[in-house]
């Protein structure tokens, strides 16, 4: 295998996407499909006393109304992070209990979409209400230490040395509190389910990052066997973690489809999605950072309070990354849950790393200013090659190179450190900020089946999901290079339980899990072809060899897993159970790294913050598909801008739920918010980590952007804003 970098190549599915030829879950337009709509609870907590569906039933074209009274034998599929398959353990409509505003109380099925929506709006319910606590500070919210829960075993407290003593003794001490608002993924695709039963089999078209999990969630909820459920999700219209588990509506639509013997489509409206899928929880952090006067970081204490639901404990792993950004020998992390009356939060792009690095990197900037040291130089001085927690070596860490390349490209040396010292011609205050990021590198087991045919086709069947990150392109690129065939001839069958066991695609582990397996499968094909035809010219394509040998096709199967994993993990994938490992492996620890340098311009009077340029340099191991990887980084930077300056889900404690539940009031960046984003990759493979040398990219691309912006805002305004999002009112 050539060790050379991969060349630029088009996104393999772009041709279909620009023609609208790619079909997402709701793109089933067969004329006889029935349409569904949900009615939702309007109280923040309590119980449904009665549901009056008379007016709804009397509306024209209504085929079925499901409520908790007639849902039948449905069980909760359990919470995925507690061994189940759902985004939360609460399956709506099993019981009359209402845990949060927006929880579904009825599913209406009708001949047309308009009729279903009309009837759902006619559903009336009476409730008994209980007091609800919906924010971190609410009196009735319950705070518990993660260390005091069963989660301690899987997510032990991160401790190294004696951080409290070392901090108290440190000559320079930073002590700061930060908050980040709840946020919602809001991929462009609306959550949707198309379900039908054919010959006793449940077939579901629904965009998901976890086809196997969705399958087994339905199995658990409906008492089926896995061979009776198919999940088809070849394309996902944006995942970002929102689609990592079974959603709340799939079971309901499946039940309705069985009752009626018809295919049923439910498209969940945007406003309902805010309440019925996971989200980034509200978080409070306190970071204490101690250093000596030369800027060597001696101690760090990172304490986090993170929101969760009443019914599930969504694990907190913030300290796992803040402890590893630098070589800090004394570290203590403490994570607590705050149980509130909300749906269970979940993984939203860089779920812990974004917030943790925001808090720590703002403190590092404060440290730099406190010492009068350049922020880039200070970070370089605290680099490391060892994981401070496990004491194992890092399999690769090119963070210093990221910082140096980034600073050079950005022109950082021209920076005048004093805040408010750089002005533009229009009077705007220019701010330059820097921050780094780290993201753990996981690997999930993969089973790849590769077939080459005499017509020239190459088919790879593997467990992964395409949500725009470009895994199809990476698969095609990696396999095509190995086999010497055009990338367009390589077809991936993914996101489909009929094809291959489909482990969840999340945590940026998709490339590191699928690409080594694909490449090893290609190697196996080449080996087999060589055995078939040892004497032929070396540069024949597989098709030419097959033709010469009179064979129609050749197929191999390859399995790969993370370092240290036992073979039992392959059985886990087929059972829809989470099986990834990392970032601590038996002999090393692996992270991806980023350095982001940001220029902001703050209008002198109205204090609008603009970001004309960002330079991002990423260490993600070998880059398989440069074009899609660069887009991924730009997307991560846009997310960082949104997280830092735009996005917040508003909570009114009197009503619960999220008030700004649409795309006008939940402010995501638009095109005019984005300027120039320059991207560079170190592109040095990490062959200790896996045979392809690849590390994760999708989330590291966002980590560090928000603190770089906050640090730039400080440079422009002299104000440290520690609460995200940063808005005009913080700078007026």
């Amino acid at each position: 295998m050539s060790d050379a970098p991969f060349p630029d190549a088009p996104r393999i599915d772009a041709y279909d996407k620009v023609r609208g030829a790619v079909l997402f879950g709701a793109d089933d337009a067969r004329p006889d499909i029935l349409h569904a709509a949900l009615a939702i609870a309007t109280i923040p907590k309590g119980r449904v006393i009665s549901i009056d569906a008379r007016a709804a039933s009397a509306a024209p074209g209504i085929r079925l109304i499901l409520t908790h009274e007639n849902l039948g034998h449905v069980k909760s599929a359990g919470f995925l992070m507690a061994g189940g398959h759902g985004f939360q353990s609460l399956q709506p409509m099993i019981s009359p209990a209402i845990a949060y505003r927006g929880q579904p109380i009825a599913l209406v099925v009708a001949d047309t979409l308009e009729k279903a929506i009309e009837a759902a709006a006619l559903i009336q319910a009476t409730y008994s209400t209980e007091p609800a606590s919906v924010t971190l500070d609410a009196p009735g919210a319950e705070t518990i230490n993660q260390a005091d829960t069963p989660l301690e075993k899987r997510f032990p407290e991160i401790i190294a040395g004696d951080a409290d003593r070392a901090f108290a003794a440190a000559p320079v001490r930073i002590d700061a509190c930060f908050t980040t608002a709840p946020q919602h993924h809001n991929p462009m695709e609306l959550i949707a389910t198309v379900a039908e039963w054919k010959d006793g089999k449940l077939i579901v078209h629904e965009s998901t990052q976890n086809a196997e999990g969705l399958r087994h969630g339905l199995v658990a909820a409906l008492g089926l066997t896995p061979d009776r459920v198919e999940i088809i999700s070849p394309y996902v219209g944006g995942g970002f973690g929102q689609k990592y588990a079974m959603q709340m509506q799939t079971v309901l639509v499946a039940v309705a489809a069985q009752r009626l013997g018809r295919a049923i489509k439910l498209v969940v409206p945007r406003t309902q999605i805010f309440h019925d899928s996971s989200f980034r929880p509200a978080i409070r952090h306190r970071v204490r950072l101690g250093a000596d006067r030369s800027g060597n970081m001696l101690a760090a204490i990172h304490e986090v309070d993170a929101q969760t639901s009443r019914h599930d404990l969504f694990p907190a792993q913030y300290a796992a990354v803040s402890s590893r950004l630098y070589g800090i020998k004394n570290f203590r992390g403490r994570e607590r849950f705050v149980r509130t009356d909300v749906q269970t939060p979940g993984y939203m792009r860089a779920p812990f790393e974004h917030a943790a690095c925001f808090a720590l990197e703002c403190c590092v900037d404060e440290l730099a200013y406190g010492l009068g040291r350049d922020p880039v130089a200070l970070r370089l001085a605290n680099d490391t090659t060892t994981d401070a927690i496990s004491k194992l070596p890092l399999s690769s860490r090119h963070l210093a190179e990221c910082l140096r390349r980034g600073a050079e490209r950005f022109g950082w040396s021209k920076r005048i450190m004093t805040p408010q010292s750089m002005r533009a011609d229009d009077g705007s205050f220019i701010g330059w900020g820097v921050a780094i990021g780290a993201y753990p590198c996981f690997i999930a087991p993969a089973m790849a089946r590769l077939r080459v045919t005499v017509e020239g086709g190459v088919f790879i069947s593997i467990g992964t999901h395409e949500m725009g990150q470009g895994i199809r392109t990476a698969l095609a690129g990696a396999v095509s290079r190995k086999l010497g065939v055009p990338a367009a001839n390589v077809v991936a069958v993914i996101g489909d339980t009929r094809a291959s066991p489909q482990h969840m695609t999340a945590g940026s582990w998709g490339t590191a899990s699928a690409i080594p397996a694909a490449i090893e499968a290609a190697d196996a094909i080449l080996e087999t072809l060589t055995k078939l035809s040892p004497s032929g010219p070396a540069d024949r394509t597989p098709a030419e060899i097959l033709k010469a040998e009179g064979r129609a096709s050749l197929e191999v199967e390859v399995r790969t897993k993370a370092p240290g994993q036992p073979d039992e993990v392959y059985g886990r994938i087929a059972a829809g159970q989470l099986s990834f490992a990392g970032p601590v492996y038996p002999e090393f620890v692996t992270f991806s790294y980023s350095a982001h340098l940001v220029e902001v311009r703050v209008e002198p009077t109205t204090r609008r913050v603009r970001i004309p340029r960002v330079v991002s340099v990423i260490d993600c191991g070998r880059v398989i598909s440069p074009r899609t990887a660069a887009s991924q980084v730009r997307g991560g930077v846009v997310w960082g801008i949104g997280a830092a300056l735009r996005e917040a889900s508003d909570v009114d404690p009197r009503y619960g739920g999220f008030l700004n539940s649409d795309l006008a009031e939940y402010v995501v960046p638009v095109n005019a918010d984005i300027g120039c984003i320059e991207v560079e990759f170190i592109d040095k493979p990490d062959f200790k980590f896996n045979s392809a040398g690849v590390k994760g990219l999708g989330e590291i691309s966002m980590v560090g952007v928000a603190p770089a912006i906050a640090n730039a805002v400080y440079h422009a305004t002299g104000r440290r804003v520690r609460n995200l999002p940063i808005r005009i009112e913080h700078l007026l």
Partner: protein
Amino acid sequence: MRPFTYTKPKSAADAVRAIAAAGPGARFLAGGTTLYDLMKLNVETPSSIIDINSLEGLSGFDTSSSSELVFGAMARMSDVADDGRLVRDYPALAESLWLAASPQLRNMASLGGNLLQRTRCAYFRGGEPFACNKRRPGSGCSAREGINRGHALLGGSNSCIAAYPGDWAVALSAFDAKVDILGPKGERTIALEDLYREPGATPHVETVLEFNELILRIRVPVTPLGRASTYHKIRDRESFAFALASAAVALQMDEDTVRDVRIAVGGVATRPWRARAAEQMVVGRALTAQAARAAGEAALQGAIVTRDNLFRKELGARTVADALMIAKQRAIRR
């Protein structure tokens, strides 16, 4: 969405007759960007829709006359925003159009409909369980003790502090626009400023229009003030968002002194808000940064702030001040 009857008359007279016959549960449908949107939320539940997109003679506009600019109520925002004469001679009006919404929405939305757009208050739009006197009279106001960052500082009442979100009406207010209305009793003309009502005790009543009245056209007296004008809009992102604060300003300068000025503010009030006190502060005086600042503060005089919208008093004042300086630059360039 509730079912409705649908008709599409050919003339304004037919339209007015049709809505009178259909009764107060009926609505005119223009671009649909407000009405159809609110119907999907069940905030508007008309029993009858009278589509006015085929009405003859209402979709044109004329900026060539020497006495007044005439805009048909059914002219599209995008067409008017691109009019060369408007851009050159009344930039505040053109900017108030192209800074609004998105290009697609501007292709759909009518000038008349845009005047009548309704508040973005989440408690109004969100339906049950939110108490909202505008949507359901007498049910209370969720915003006063709730999340009110985007709510009005001027023109509110104990019953309602919902902000008027539009831009076009704010700019028109600065230019003494008039509105021609057709009703069962014939045509009448009112000042645009008199079209709107503050919520008072009846927030569900937003304009003086009867249900059976139709806006025919908007007329703006030609004025040299238009040339050095601007519409300055500050929002939570660079585009495709409503104003946190906005200001329409038009200036006529005599060297350094202000000969004449118009100031209207948007985003911060329950209706388009002409700031005459601010105008008084600058007319006849040199337009220094301090004078602009003082005018800005005067424009926000009487603002009643809430827990979350306090910053918009300061932001509003600065927006007016900035707009004055932008208009002054345009006056100097001419």
